């Protein structure tokens, strides 16, 4: 194995020496993702539900609300992530107390993840057949009951896949967070692999990212399939 790697110009020893730092980096990446995805689910999820409910032809149809919310979501999503990262520094300081480190980087990540996930939730809820919602109305269900017992139940497997897509996109977004000293695997790849031409570290970090992406997608697919009874 080490021979194979060395023929590729990769030093096994250099990677071993980096292992502790890689461990830390993986931890930092997971921290950023954990916070970003939690914010996406807890804030972006309800926002997506509201986006769906106030849209034309839905039960809480409200043109002004739909316009304002849609405009807000689109605007935040228009920012290139790196610009958002810098623009949000004062806000990040306020929330995280610092603008450096994985916790600070989690703030702009969450900010970007919330409208992203909200749109995906809205899209998935639109796939729920109208008739099913109508049947629930006919049985006397309230709006909240329709959300909890109809929309989320019927759209659940699509929502899991949406979260999977989000997790994978934000794994690469988190690399950009290295710019503000966010840390994480992507940051490692940029600092060692790109700036210092340490190809072995680059290869190792990319390998770790590939494994994480594959595992995330595999798990997401498995769960989505298991809970889909349609």
């Amino acid at each position, binding site marked *: 194995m080490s021979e194979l790697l060395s023929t590729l110009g990769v030093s096994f020893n250099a990677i071993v020496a980096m292992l502790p730092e890689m461990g830390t980096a993986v931890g930092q990446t997971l921290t950023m993702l954990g916070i970003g995805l939690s914010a996406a689910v807890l804030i972006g999820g309800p926002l997506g539900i509201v986006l769906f409910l106030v849209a034309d032809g839905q039960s809480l149809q409200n043109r002004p609300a739909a316009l304002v919310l849609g405009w807000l979501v689109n605007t935040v999503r228009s920012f290139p992530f790196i610009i958002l990262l810098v623009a949000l520094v004062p806000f990040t300081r306020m929330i995280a107390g610092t603008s450096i480190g994985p916790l600070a980087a989690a703030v702009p990540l969450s900010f970007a993840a919330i409208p992203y996930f909200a749109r995906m939730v809205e899209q998935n809820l639109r796939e729920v057949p109208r008739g099913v919602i*109508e049947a629930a*109305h*006919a*049985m006397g269900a*309230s709006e909240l009951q329709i959300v909890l017992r109809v929309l989320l139940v019927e759209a659940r497997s699509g929502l899991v896949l949406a979260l999977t897509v989000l997790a994978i996109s934000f794994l690469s977004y988190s690399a950009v967070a290295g710019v503000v000293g966010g840390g994480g695997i992507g940051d490692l790849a940029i600092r060692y692999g790109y700036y210092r031409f340490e190809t072995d570290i680059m290869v190792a970090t990319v390998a770790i990212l590939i494994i994480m992406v594959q595992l995330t997608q595999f798990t997401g697919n498995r769960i989505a399939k298991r809970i889909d*009874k349609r």
Partner: protein
Amino acid sequence: MTIPLIRIEHASKTFTLPDGGRFDAVRHVSLDVRQGDIFGLIGKSGAGKSTLLRLFNLLERPDAGAITVAGRELTSLSKRDLRDARRNIGMIFQQFNLLQNATVFDNVAFPLRIHGGQKPEQIAARVNQCLELVELGVKADSYPAQLSGGQKQRVAIARALASGPAVLLCDEPTSALDAETTRALLATLRDINHRLGVTIVIVSHELSVLAEICNRVAVIEDGAIAEEFALNEPAGHNAPRKTALGRELAAFNAANTLAGTHREAAHV
């Protein structure tokens, strides 16, 4: 004369079309359905019969007019009271509209759970009772995707009956089913009407369906009732029908009755 179970008074409903035009789906319709009736609404597609049916539980709110079901005038109710009133009005649909990600049991339990106030054991007992009624007790743990069309519609009937409604609204209930399944389903509906005394209002474009189970029908043309008459009553046969659909339906019904008499005679 007793007060009818359902009374529609001067109901109108106009839709604004995407191109800005207006479409009068229901025009000044007044209609009574008596307790125990199986009342049919027939008409060509686009005649407004489904919209009319959806006024009965306010899935569609009329622009004008009053809808009274079991003594409650629905258009004047608050949201909360309307939800409560809807427990008394079950509904089934052409496309069944079951929750695909819920078991048959959970589908039938849905109306009981959303209104609360019942213990899980009470709900389970009621769900099983309703599933037995439509002969699907063994399918309680199945998901709708594992059932045939006829079975799905039976689950929908069990779900609609779970809260013990006085009225069952049926919107093209057999249009997605084959002839044989249709016959079996109509027998189930008739049985529910006879045994439980549930009043049924059924919309269909199939003459055979209405001729088979209705005791009264209204022919809907251009959003209004063109005529209304009783089936299976000797006097009804003689009265001249005003509409083509009405004549066809009466002829169909007469043939049916005749065939029925022959069958019974053969049986003896």
